């Protein structure tokens, strides 16, 4: 699967899509493959302020629980309510309907990777 060019990516396998000062955040195709079947999502509360790299919830698969990290600093303005009833959207459409949350951000997340750099990062980790 191609990683969308308009997204930016963290080394902890989240993606960020900027729209003005609002960042939509999800986990990458690679991350959902690693997790396996997602059965429960614990999202942060709206209004919560997160620093870059902060733990911001958990995704439970049948196998295990994984932390979600905020790839960029900001305040939670919306969480994907559809995931409460349909956590499998994270597997089915990780870069689309499986988005996790929206943050109002101040900076641009300079340390994030573009699609090509993220794919190179995955190739480096390529033992997977």
């Amino acid at each position, binding site marked *: 699967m191609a990683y969308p060019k308009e997204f930016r990516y963290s080394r902890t396998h989240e993606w960020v899509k900027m729209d003005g000062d609002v960042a939509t955040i999800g986990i990458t195709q690679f991350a959902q493959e690693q997790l*396996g*079947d997602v*059965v*429960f999502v*614990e999202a942060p509360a709206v209004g919560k302020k997160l620093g870059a790299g902060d733990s911001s919830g*958990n995704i*439970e*698969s*049948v*196998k*295990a*629980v994984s932390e979600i990290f905020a790839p960029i600093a900001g305040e939670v303005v919306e969480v994907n309510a559809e995931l409460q009833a349909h956590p499998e959207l994270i*597997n089915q459409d990780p870069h689309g309907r499986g988005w996790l949350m929206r943050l109002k951000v101040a900076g641009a997340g300079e340390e994030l990777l573009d699609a090509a750099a993220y794919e190179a990062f995955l190739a480096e980790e390529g033992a997977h």
Partner: protein
Amino acid sequence: MDLKRTPLFSCHVEAGGRIVPFAGWEMPVQYRGVIEEHRAVRTGVGLFDVSHMGEIEVTGGRALEFLQHVTCNDVAKLVAGRAHYSGLMTPRGTFVDDLLVHKMSDDRYFLVVNAANTEKDYAYLCAQVNGFGDADVRDASADWAQIAVQGPRALELGQRFTSARLAEIKYYRFVEDDFGGARAIIARTGYTGEDGLEVYVAPDAAAGLWRELLRVGADLGVAPCGLGARDTLRFEACMALYGNDIDDTTTPLEAGLEWIVKTDKGPFLGRDALLRQQEQGIPRTLIGFEVTGRGIARHGYPIWAGGRHAGVVTSGTHAPTLNKPLGLGYVPLEFAAEGTPLEIEIRGQRVGAVVVPTPFYRRPR
């Protein structure tokens, strides 16, 4: 330490299995997905590579006496061609391991043990067999690959590979016969809560057999399954997992396995401790619970009851067939009754749960 590979390793890689380290082995945790594989076994048939499990042979004129001494079930009740589930016991009545004991003949028994415990069990048996005279213990793990064929259509698939009449092999019995051209032990056993077979063959016959099972079973929708589905399937059926639900601190009585404790068979390791528990009562018991709040209980999470930290979760996940978050854990007897409210501490937050009957899943017959 280098990880070991089963004879089916290349089959798993070919089929896109995701390989993870498990108990010293490189094993597939899933192929297409845990839930899909889980459903294939509940509704059709799935294949599992369980070649990592250990096989230990106990032979000799005193093999029976020896096994009576080290395990808690009554081996004298077995006749050739029958197997039973049992516990390898410490002197404290706790589990060194749980295992299957197959009686091949009066002086030959075939033990199947957990992969992670094979070396420990073998060493323990060797230490115990000293002074027993005519009883020998041999680690035969390298002689055997094992394929589990599990699900309501497992016998239909298996029957295409053997002239042995599989439907006539009753539960927990086995035959030695040809299976797909290989000499095999074909047992009506499993770890999924479904009907099925566990087929033991020589390692060099395993890969060909695995591929043939997939090819010949295509019309039955046979699915290769990984350790992920094996765990969710056994969990729904409430079959204990060593290292999670049972270990060398838990007795079979605490684990709800009193049916494998035969204190009337005569002396054996741990019998005194188990008799004491039978007389005085057990301090805690393994219960099933449903998480009624939001979240999933996992191994090691604290259980709260009656306002105190009362126990610990031993297994938990979102059960795929039942489609709800369930768990197993130990609590004192006063909190074990069905309907008792509990709380599970999930990452620092207490979430509601309630004691429910086990097993969670029982196959329709």
